[in-house]
């Protein structure tokens, strides 16, 4: 090896090593720092990318509107590839940068599980809007998790409500067969306890049909569905699994209007390529659907995209997953805003302060309208003990061309039914971890 080569490789190595050592927290950060865990590659990229674009575009919009009471936002992406260990590495890499992370939103149930153990140590809240572990609604035990807007148990409960409604009342559920086609991972398994409980309660039969990651092989699953002819199929998929399920349904002739997807199975990438073949397929909508007409979307187009600063392509702005990312982002920002009300406007908030903000969120209709979210979502209020806030679900249907709301109804989960399950599951968790649940008094601090 000659000297030049040696020098070159040595300097490359140093550069590489210095890039490894994260820049340590500067003493007084001037900006609010949002790390963004994304996946734009791999098997789930088609669904991960629009979510991430919405998430980041909203942060850009907030900056364009002048920041959070003047505090600018900086953000940084890290690619997880929907893999837990990569997600953990990203978390470790980003959490200490730029004065400390504000919130993390992993967009992966697996990563959420791993970070649930780490967040309390680092004192960084986790927002898992519409995913994550369902029992983490209990803020007394899961002090750093925020499954805002809805959990999978809510989703399962609403799906059954909807089926009951279509059948003309819960009494008619008796003897019916409902098949759950689910992604064989913690994500897909979340609704099972609720469905089984409800099955016992109303007397319907739940058939569990797991589909292995990444979900491109479903022939046997749909043959079984053809054999058992369930009255409804509940699709709990993610990424390519959803479109595959619809194609298989088409090729085995299962009526699409008897299929219902969770909100992660109800976006454009899931149905676009199946187009006509998916017509009539419905999915739960976590409050919003595709919202091209919302004011916030128009603001983004005029204040971000018009200046050429858009993250993704213009066409995708306002689509379902884009909106989901945008909402998640907004919730984080509002947490900071709320925290500033208490800890000082125009200051950069720490993770701990943001947690207080998220626990005291109160987005009423007026605030939402002002932010441009009219018609996109309903008011949300959280508390120290309820980390989910109120949850509203609508039903959207694919008409072969776009998602639309078939009925104007809004659904809410049956709190009387779910609350005990949440308490039971979180109690078990607290016992395992030897955690002492927070009391309402501690909350006030």
């Amino acid at each position, binding site marked *: 090896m000659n000297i030049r080569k040696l020098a070159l490789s040595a300097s490359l190595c140093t550069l590489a090593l210095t890039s490894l050592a994260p820049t340590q927290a500067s003493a007084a950060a001037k900006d609010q720092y949002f790390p963004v865990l994304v996946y734009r*590659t791999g098997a789930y990229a088609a669904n991960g990318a629009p979510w991430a674009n919405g998430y980041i575009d909203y942060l850009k919009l907030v900056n364009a509107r002048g920041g959070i009471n003047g505090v600018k936002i900086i953000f940084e992406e890290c690619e997880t590839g929907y893999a837990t260990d990569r997600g953990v590495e990203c978390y470790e890499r980003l959490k200490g940068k730029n004065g400390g992370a504000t919130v993390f939103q992993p967009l992966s149930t697996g990563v959420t599980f791993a970070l649930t153990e780490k967040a309390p140590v680092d004192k960084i809240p986790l927002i898992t809007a519409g995913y994550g572990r369902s029992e983490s609604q209990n803020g007394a035990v899961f002090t750093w998790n925020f499954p805002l807007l809805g959990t999978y148990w809510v989703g399962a409960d609403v799906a059954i409500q909807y089926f009951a409604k279509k059948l003309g009342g819960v009494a008619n559920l008796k003897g019916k067969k409902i098949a759950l086609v689910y992604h064989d991972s913690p994500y897909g398994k979340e609704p099972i306890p609720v469905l089984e409980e409800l099955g016992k309660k109303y007397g319907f039969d739940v058939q*569990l049909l797991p589909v292995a990651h990444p979900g*491109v092989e479903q022939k046997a699953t749909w043959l079984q569905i*053809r054999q058992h002819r369930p009255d409804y199929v509940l699709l709990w998929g993610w990424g*390519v699994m959803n*479109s595959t399920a619809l194609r298989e349904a088409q090729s085995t002739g299962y009526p699409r209007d008897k299929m219902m997807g969770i909100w992660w199975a109800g976006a454009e990438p899931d149905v676009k*390529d199946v187009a006509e073949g998916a017509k009539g397929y419905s999915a739960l909508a976590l409050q919003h659907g595709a919202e091209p007409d919302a004011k916030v979307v128009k603001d983004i187009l005029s204040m971000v995209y018009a200046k050429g600063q858009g993250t993704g392509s213009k066409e995708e702005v306002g689509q379902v997953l884009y909106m989901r990312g945008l909402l998640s982002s907004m919730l984080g920002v509002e947490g900071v805003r709320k925290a500033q009300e208490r800890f000082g406007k125009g200051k950069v908030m720490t993770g701990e302060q943001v947690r207080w903000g998220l626990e005291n969120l109160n987005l009423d209709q007026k605030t939402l309208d002002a932010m441009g979210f009219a018609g996109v979502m309903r008011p949300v209020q959280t508390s120290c003990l309820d980390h989910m806030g109120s949850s509203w679900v609508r039903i959207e249907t694919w008409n072969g061309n776009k998602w639309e709301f078939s009925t104007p109804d809004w659904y809410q989960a049956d709190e009387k039914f779910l609350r005990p399950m949440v308490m039971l599951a979180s109690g078990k968790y607290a016992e395992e971890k030897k955690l002492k649940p927070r009391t309402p008094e501690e909350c006030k601090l």
Partner: protein
Amino acid sequence: MGFFLETLIGGLMAGMLYSLVALGFVLIYKASGVFNFAQGSMVLFAALAMARFAEWLPHWLGLDSLWLANTIAFVIAGALMFVVAWLIERLVLRYLVNQEGATLLMATLGIAYVLEGIGTSLFGNNIYSIDVGMPKEPVFILDGLFEGGLLINKEDFIAALIAALLVGLLALFFQKTTTGRALRAVADDHQAAQSIGIPLNRIWVIIWFVAGLVALVAGVIWGSKLGVQFSLVTVALRGLPVVILGGLTSIPGAIIGGLIIGVGEKLSEVYLGPMIGGGIEIWFAYQLALVFLLFRPQGLFGEKIIDRV
């Protein structure tokens, strides 16, 4: 009974598609002794190229015939696979003559990463569709005999026919040509083949190109069925039990193996799955292959493993 037949047919159709992937493995293994783990990535790469060019060409050239756009896209994708084959030989295999199997296998994993990276950065990461005009809706036959009729999927049926045709052509190519014999010689002993003047380089380009074409056909069929997306690389994992069941060096083995695996996994999932929780087809396929291996360690049709000290 009707349902059993349906499952059986479904399994056979799926099996035919596995065979197509398995065929890619067999071709390359036979000719170069390389166990090509990049086969799945080649399927993805070829399918992505096909899907995207079929989408772009009408824009670029103002074509409005779907058929024409598809044909040109297919040719372009085929040409790309040739370039891939040539580059792989030029940049990798050439320098790994006479290395151990494990090293070669690792090199193909490296190639797989590179192909995935290049493929997705050139062609994108979303779900794309290949529309070659395959019928999607199911057909029901023998209504009278069984309740609800027998479900036959026209698309699967056509796919299976194409696969069978391709296999037939390849078998001929291998049995009847001088190149075929040279390929087998190379598989046995790189160096000896080299010493008698068989140009390894050319043989490898040929065989990787043929495997690339097989990958392209597989990609088009799978893509038309399920959409083209990153997960296509996992079809390689479905092809593996097929190859070891049929034998790494046997083209008929890939077919029979594919059918056995296809039928085995669908029947097991449908009849055994519900009893023990479902989702068993992938490991069942592997276990099935393993059981066969215990009786014939070289696979059903593989060349006998020759032990001489």
